[in-house]
């Protein structure tokens, strides 16, 4: 039995690099594995970006954006898709942001936490956030495009479906922004005789606006990149005009890319790459806007 106690002068006082080599070797291999993981993850991202730019380079010119889709690759462009995306995503934002923020205000500021129906709503939103987006497409096909609302394959249909897709995220992000507002602000307002609604409207919301803005911009950018649900409601059709109303047929940028990819002719491949670059550019623009809003907010706090 080894002595559990001081070893003192009896044993070598050598504390120089005695940790067994075995441990050190394992340490080194582990660190190598971590580096490799990081390398693969980042390397893949860089590969994707480089591939898109190199393949799309020949078609990355203004004609890409001014041309309409065409059966002839040399004349094809994505104008209808860009405008279609603007219409659809804009409408989606217009519907989902008020609804989502309103729901968040209710849940954060008014709802009593211990009531069962409020907890049901919370649980429900969490579940909806993890439903595959294609299921929302099915819902749209059954009730919005056909069935009850029978809106057909139009801009409004697409916007309503995408609203459902991003709504849980808008609610969750807005709730976090509201939660971040310190309670001292609320108490101060209430103590001065304001109603709860006035407190929210005049104190909490203005303070939470930057956080809500960040969250909603990010959710909307997600709507811009969605493809699966819209496959089921006609966004893949060959559309050579810009939308002229909410009841207009349409296409969106991700699905224009999908079309280009699906074309058998190899000349469409650079188009797919170029259109992807445009899409990524738009997304990065939106995300940068969100980050900018967030950082201006943080600066204000200092």
């Amino acid at each position, binding site marked *: *039995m*080894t*002595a*559990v*106690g*001081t*070893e*003192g*002068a009896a044993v070598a*006082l050598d*504390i*120089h*690099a*005695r*940790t*067994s080599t*075995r*441990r050190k070797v394992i340490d080194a291999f582990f660190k190598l594995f971590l580096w490799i993981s990081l390398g693969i993850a980042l390397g893949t991202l860089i590969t994707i970006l480089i591939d898109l730019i190199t393949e799309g380079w020949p078609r990355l010119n203004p004609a890409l954006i001014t041309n309409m889709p065409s059966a002839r690759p040399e004349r094809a462009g994505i104008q209808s898709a860009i405008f279609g995306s603007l219409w659809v995503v804009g409408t989606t934002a217009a519907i989902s942001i008020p609804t989502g923020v309103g729901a968040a205000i209710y849940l954060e500021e008014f709802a009593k936490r211990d009531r069962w129906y409020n907890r049901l709503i919370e649980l429900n939103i969490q579940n909806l956030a993890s439903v595959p987006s294609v299921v929302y497409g099915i819902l749209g096909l059954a009730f919005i495009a056909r069935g009850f609302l029978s809106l057909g394959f139009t801009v409004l249909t697409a916007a309503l479906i995408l609203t459902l897709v991003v709504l849980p995220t808008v609610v969750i992000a807005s709730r976090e922004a509201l939660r971040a507002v310190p309670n001292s602000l609320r108490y101060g307002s209430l103590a001065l005789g304001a109603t709860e609604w006035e407190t929210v409207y005049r104190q909490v919301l203005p303070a939470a606006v930057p956080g809500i803005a960040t969250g909603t911009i990010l959710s909307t950018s997600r709507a811009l990149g969605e493809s699966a649900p819209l496959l089921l409601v006609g966004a893949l059709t060959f559309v050579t005009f810009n939308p002229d109303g909410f009841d207009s047929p349409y296409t969106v940028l991700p699905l224009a890319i999908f079309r280009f990819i699906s074309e058998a002719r190899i000349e469409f491949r650079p188009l797919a790459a170029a259109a992807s670059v445009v899409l990524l550019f738009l997304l990065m623009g939106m995300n940068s806007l969100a980050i900018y809003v967030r950082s201006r907010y943080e600066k204000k706090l200092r």
Partner: protein
Amino acid sequence: MTDKDYAAVRTEKAGPPIRVETPGAMNDAELHNDAEIVFDVVGLSVYYRDFQAVRDIDIPVRQKEITALIGPSGCGKSTILRCFNRMNDLIEEARVEGSVRFHGIDIYQEGVDPVELRRRVGMVFQKPNPFPKSIYDNVAFGPRVGGFRVNMDDLVEESLTRAALWEEVKDKLSESALALSGGQQQRLCIARAIATSPDVVLMDEPCSALDPIATLRIEELMQELKEDYTILIVTHNMQQAARVSDRTAFLTVDVNAVGQRTGYLVEFDTTDRIFTSPARPETEAYITGRFG
């Protein structure tokens, strides 16, 4: 320290501390000044980037004694303690100057392996931090990573016995350590620290998160542990230092023009002398409760 500083700091009740006679605490006559110095600290300063948290500390820690670091909060006691096992290495901005010698070896020199050092110098923290594992696995952790070739069951039992915990947990070694009470968890942390056969055990305010009864048990335990280990304890409770320690270092803090606080050593002596006839007026002011 100016009177303004005294007033600014929280004061405890006035009056000299009552010395409780605990068995084992050495009084002045018994302390051997020729006992081997296990840790010799000379000119220790710790910087966080440009800010000097602690300056010029000289403390000799003698073998098989209990040495206490006392002083008002914020004077860097924990920072100093963490230099002894190089835990300050884990903080990016921390920088250590001066020398800390362990059995004559400067632990901050090239070639010294902090992992091995921490096997030889154990630490118990302010808030008990058992791993969310079984009691057995908690105690066995240090020996296992250290590659000890022993009968683990025996080692675990002996460690828990020395920490005065064995009788209470011997039937539930495979249960979660988190099910234990606060005082039991802290004794488990002590058992876990001594399982690696250290020479020295560092204790950073080990009782501040515990109730008085648990505190008393741990203070009794310290007297038993003193027979085999050197103990260095940081405490903000000076009555505790008076009760358990053999030697005491009194530190306090200097506030500079910008409001930055730098800790420094005021006095280091046997506990007896510090609490009955301190040499420095600051020490006397602190122990009589004129400032906290």
